[in-house]
């Protein structure tokens, strides 16, 4: 049974249509992540679910009830605001306990829950401070704590970990995952962090300017992006795209080279303009000249454990190559890149839709205008 259902929901601020018709079903207990470019409407959608923003048109169901007009307080959700929205006049403890007090939770229970949350969020030393005396990350944790102590039916998180350091972020991720397991409630989670999205989500909804581009399991989105946008958005660094034209089952690149494509994987229409998508992982310096791409190294990023090589192909496409470990190449070097055709993606250049055959069935939905 769907715990949360959006039916053709839209939202306009005056003349600006921000949410353009979103359909979504989130089952009970599911962990659903919203991703999408900055400004695409994630927060707005969250606020509409919470009841803080009115719904311009369409229906919102929580459980079996249409709740478009149910007041936010009555919906039984908890939310972590992107802007934190802490109570400036209350100390951390009061910020955390306020919601519970509203629910007439007995004092000792409140105490207990708050202490547990504070420990989990590593803010137990800060309980008597006001928000303005906290660092950015500390504030963010208080904001999380405020939602967490409530243990509501549905959790809404709006980029809750954006201001935390890597280590803490990993900790929090697992704490939230554990909380989810423990409470078994539905969670809607907005993030810009690929790792968070991929690792925490049961389902990911990819939004673009007010529309859901694809909604499905993380790996399905990664392996089976419905369109070029999703392909580009999921996975970091971003997928490489090379324009070309089909000639039978061969892809003719602009520089005249051809790449042979496995007919079994793609719907191929002769002389169609297509875009080849190659993940930075699936392209590597090689020696086989048949599938090779000539490129010049533009820059190199060494992360220690991984390296990214940014190169420009002789057709002018930007190509990113991901190598584990630390590489010893330098800017300006020539590079012969080998593409693993078995893991490539192919898209119709015009519509952006994937040309892949036998797409995994459990991708619930795939929309693209």
């Amino acid at each position: 049974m769907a715990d949360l259902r959006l039916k053709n929901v839209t939202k306009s601020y005056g003349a600006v249509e921000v949410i353009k018709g979103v359909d979504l079903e989130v089952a009970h207990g599911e962990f659903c992540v919203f991703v999408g470019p900055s400004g695409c409407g994630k927060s707005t959608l969250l606020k509409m679910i919470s009841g803080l923003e009115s719904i311009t048109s369409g229906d919102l169901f929580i459980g079996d009830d249409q709740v478009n007009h149910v007041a936010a307080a009555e919906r039984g959700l908890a939310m972590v605001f992107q802007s934190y929205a802490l109570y400036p006049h209350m100390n951390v403890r009061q910020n955390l306990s306020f919601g519970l007090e509203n629910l007439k939770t007995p004092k000792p229970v409140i105490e207990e829950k708050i202490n547990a949350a504070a420990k989990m969020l590593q803010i137990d030393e800060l309980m008597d401070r006001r928000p303005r005396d906290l660092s950015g990350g500390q504030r963010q944790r208080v904001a999380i704590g405020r939602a967490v102590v409530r243990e509501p039916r549905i959790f809404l998180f709006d980029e809750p970990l954006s201001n935390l350091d890597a280590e803490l972020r990993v900790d929090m991720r697992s704490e939230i995952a554990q909380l989810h397991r423990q409470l078994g409630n539905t969670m809607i989670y907005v993030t810009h962090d690929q790792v968070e999205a991929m690792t925490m989500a049961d389902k990911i909804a990819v939004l673009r300017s007010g529309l859901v581009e694809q909604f499905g399991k993380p790996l399905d989105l990664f392996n089976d992006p419905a369109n070029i946008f999703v392909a580009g958005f999921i996975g970091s660094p971003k997928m490489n795209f090379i324009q070309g034209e089909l000639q039978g089952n061969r892809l003719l690149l602009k520089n005249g080279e051809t790449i042979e494509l496995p007919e079994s994987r793609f719907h191929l229409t002769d002389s169609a303009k297509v875009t080849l998508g190659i993940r930075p992982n699936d392209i590597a310096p090689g020696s086989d000249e048949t599938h090779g791409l000539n490129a010049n190294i533009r820059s190199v990023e060494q992360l220690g454990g991984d390296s990214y090589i940014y190169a420009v192909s002789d057709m002018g496409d930007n190509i990113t190559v991901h190598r584990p470990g630390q590489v010893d190449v330098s800017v300006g070097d020539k590079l012969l890149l080998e593409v693993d055709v078995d893991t490539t993606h192919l898209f119709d250049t015009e519509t952006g839709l994937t040309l892949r055959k036998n797409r995994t069935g459990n991708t619930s939905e795939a929309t693209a205008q």
Partner: protein
Amino acid sequence: MAKTLEFLTRTRGHGKLHWTDWFTYAYLLFGILLMFGPVVWLVMSSFKTDAELDRFPPRFLPYAAQTVELEGYSKPLPLYKVVAGDLTGETVAQVRRIGLTSQVVRLDAPEEIIKINLKDREPIERISIATENYTDLFSKFDFLRFFWNSTFITVVATVIMLIVNSMAAFALAKYKFSGRAAVMAMVIGVLMIPQTVVLVPLFIVTKELGMLDSLWGVIVPGAATPTGIFLLRQYMLTIPDEILDAARMDKASEWKIYWRIVLPLSAPAIAVLAILAIMWRWNDFLWPLIALSRSENFTLQLALNSFQGEMTTQWSSLLAMTVLTLLPVAFVFAFLQKYIATGIASTGGK
């Protein structure tokens, strides 16, 4: 009707009316009655003649006796309806009244005088708007001159006051300097002394500064009001310091910060103070009365109050003048009140 009701009761787009909504509308309705009713009454009254104003019990609408011009009578005669006796139901004109009898004539036979009992007749009245209350004002004195004086004083004094007060409020709200507490105490201290009491000393000071009997003598002494400083300072306290810091990073001088950041962000408080300042200056009576003695410098309020004599007050003129002086401030209020709702509801930060 249903539509107006719907219009009035629409809330934030959520269907049902919460009890707080009911309370709100009940309160507002009560508010209109209690707060606005008397004001409406005042406006209606300003259209009444002095005689009608003296009347018990007062009536809401201005009435005046209906009269008729009849041949053979130099003055218009008042009309009456006869309620008892032979002429019951007829409309007659009264020629004169003697004791308990009234001499009346039928309208179609103005020559024949009939005597009827005083109690048997009722005056016929109709709504009549005594616009002369207003027109007289313009003819009686130099309305435009007083209007200009009042406007000049109000505008200049308000601008000076807003600037000077907001500067001080800014300093008191946003800097931590030694002496702040002392200045703050001083500001509040000045509030303690009622204006009435210091009028004479203030008069002496103003006289020594040679500002007496000029518009500046009214403008300047009132410019530094403790109320304004106090009000603005408390409001400025709520502006996050971080925004000021951002401006400092943008190389804004402290003056720029005051003028371009803090002042606009205090718009609601400034609007409130502007409304109040305009009102104070416009309605100020006591100080102009003592500071101004030449009628060419008089303000509207002084002129208005010249209807108050030792033993009698010409209420009809006074009320008309009140309404007339009320209008500009009412307009200013209508214009400024919307700024009260332009708060920094969201700071655009985190």
